[in-house]
């Protein structure tokens, strides 16, 4: 397509190599984009479950899940609406740890994450294993705020951030792909920011 008349781009400084195509650095801002009211979840009744194609379905309370081996992520996050945040620090537990305790069955190929708000999102199993995904409850040393998905959200930072379900309640292991909330509404099933997989067909 042609050049936009008069547009040079605001910054001619070298582009940060950490930014995928079409993304901009949001700096200190952290935009909030959700489709539903922000829930206030009670830690006393909060739970996280792993269900579906596993040997042992698991349910953890807030205290129980904090007794598992801690894990952290330092790096970048990318939202499909084109903002990225660079150099973030998240803490929580690795999804590998949770899946190992549940025992993933050989037929499992995908997961469907669901939230306490009934939001869902689908991911290939290969994208939430191998040290690539977390259940995160702390960011930059502070508890994760409600508007950012607190008390705990899924964190899959190598994919667009709608995959990192806020207020996540569990993972269902599936032997097939099952599109989630945004995916049935035109968003991409995988969402790799480096391939600009924003919408179905990208």
């Amino acid at each position: 397509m042609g050049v936009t008349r008069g547009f040079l781009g605001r910054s001619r400084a070298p582009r940060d190599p950490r930014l995928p195509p079409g993304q901009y650095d949001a700096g200190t801002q952290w935009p909030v984009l959700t489709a539903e009211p922000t829930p206030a979840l009670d830690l006393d009744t909060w739970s996280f479950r792993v269900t579906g194609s596993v040997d042992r379905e698991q349910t953890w309370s807030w205290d129980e899940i904090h007794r598992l081996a801690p894990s952290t992520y330092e790096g970048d996050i990318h939202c499909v609406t084109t903002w990225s945040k660079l150099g973030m620090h998240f803490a929580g537990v690795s999804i590998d740890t949770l899946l190992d305790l549940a025992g993933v069955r050989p037929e499992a190929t995908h997961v469907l994450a669901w939230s306490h708000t009934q939001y869902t999102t689908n991911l290939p199993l290969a994208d939430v294993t191998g040290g690539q995904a977390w259940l995160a409850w702390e960011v930059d040393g502070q508890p994760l705020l409600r508007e950012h998905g607190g008390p705990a959200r899924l964190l899959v930072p190598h994919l667009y951030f709608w995959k990192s379900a806020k207020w996540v309640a569990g993972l269902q292991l599936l032997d097939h792909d099952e599109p989630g909330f945004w995916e049935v509404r035109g968003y991409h099933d995988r969402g790799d920011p480096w391939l600009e997989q924003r919408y179905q067909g990208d």
Partner: protein
Amino acid sequence: MDVGPDDDPAGGRVEPGANRPTAWQTATVVGLHDETPSARTFRLSLPSPFIHRAGQHVVVRLRAPDGYTASRSYSVASAPGDGSEIELTVERLAEGEVSSFLHEEVVVGDALEVRGPIGGWFVWDGRSPALLVGGGSGVVPLMAMLRLARAQGRVDQVRMVVSVRDPGALYYADELPGPETTVLYSRHGPPDDPRPVGRIRSEDLAGLTRGGVTPYVCGSSGFADAATDLLVGLGVAPDHIRVERFGPTQ
């Protein structure tokens, strides 16, 4: 409450074709006018027409000679029509690379890359009661819904409550007011306004939440949280409220 993915209440509400891929096209700016000192409406002619649903948005992409691109999403303000033209209202943000360019540089006759329509959740088809609650520039997708209701002769289906800082900050000021709309002023109101100025309050929404109405809330994150908290306080089930929010937290 702990619910599984099979309980997703929205699953059955997706329209056929909602996941149809959307292609880029080069639209032509055929009109523009200011809504407020910081908001401008752009009328775009689409070479590949599409009929959007009220509440949907499009992506606008700018391309520099060296291939650099910047894109942002903007809500469609016009009601669904024959698909050949749409209107976008763009708030100028101080640090907004795309919105600043659109305000400062774009004139009638310019070409803009657009893609859409996008979004299958914050949409209203005019066939069921809706309560539209907007803050500031959050009125834009709600205006598409109000215009749809008026075009269909079904203003009985819709009530709108819009909160703005002062009278000069109201978008669509010549068109929006009517018996089905209420404008709230948070800082300065007109001298004859009986409502004390201030942010949205429970009494501003009381009486509008009965009868299975679906609330659509759009605005900044702070406004959206305040409005949804008020609605829940008035007895609306949280999962009946549709929210579109924008803007950062620090």
